[in-house]
């Protein structure tokens, strides 16, 4: 009998908070690249991740209406990297306020298009009052 197929193992979670200002987006980009580098992603996949995370942070800044900070949570697993990017209004509302499903955004631009093209999975919600949240996953070698 063959051994059961190996499931994905959680490797760790990294949380980063940056000021919601353009000059800090590069920090998020480089931090996520460093995390992705610990997984067996190709150089091209890491470049995809860098751009996707930067686009998500840019969306938070542009949609944030003066939001103070952006939280980036990276969950690394053997098979994938899952990244949550949300502006501080989500944090202040707490878990109970999180919406379970995606709210489609009208007039989505190049940024969201790029994230969708570069990542394997994306859920997002952009609301001028409630805040901006993007949850994206990239699988290793997909």
């Amino acid at each position, binding site marked *: 009998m063959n051994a059961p197929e190996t499931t994905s193992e959680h490797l760790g979670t990294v949380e980063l908070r940056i000021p919601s200002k353009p000059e800090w987006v590069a920090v998020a980009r480089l931090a996520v690249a460093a995390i992705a580098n610990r997984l067996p992603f190709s150089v*091209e996949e890491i470049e995809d991740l860098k751009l996707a995370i930067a686009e998500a942070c840019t969306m938070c800044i542009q949609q944030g209406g003066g939001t103070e900070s952006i939280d980036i949570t990276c969950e690394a697993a053997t098979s994938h990297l899952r990244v949550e990017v949300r502006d501080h209004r989500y944090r202040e509302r707490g878990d109970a306020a999180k919406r379970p499903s995606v709210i489609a955004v009208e007039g989505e631009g190049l940024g969201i298009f790029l994230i969708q093209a570069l990542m394997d999975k994306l859920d997002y919600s952009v609301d001028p009052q409630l805040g901006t949240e993007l949850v994206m996953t990239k699988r290793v070698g997909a």
Partner: protein
Amino acid sequence: MDIKVHVRESEDDAYVVELGGEIDVYTSPKVKDAITELIDQGHYNLVINLEKVRYIDSTGLGVLIGGLKRVREHGGTVNLVCTNPQIKKIFDITGLVKIFGIFDDEAGAKKALA
């Protein structure tokens, strides 16, 4: 994080905007200023050289698209020089390869302006 912007007039009456570094939400205003200044001066045929650009995001693409729209209003165009495969990929997946002339070298980009 850095961006280098160098504007020069080439011998064949075209203007070349040579960019280097990273074009993102922080640095793209500097690129926009350089392109806008050239257009305001009446230069509508531009070559934007991205050979030394390591990274570009949607805000950078937006600046290039904005520049192209403005010069087209005056019958001009913007040709790009780009050899970085990752950046070419971004132009490809956004469909911008169809609206920009993208060349492997500056000579080709300038020749296509004529």
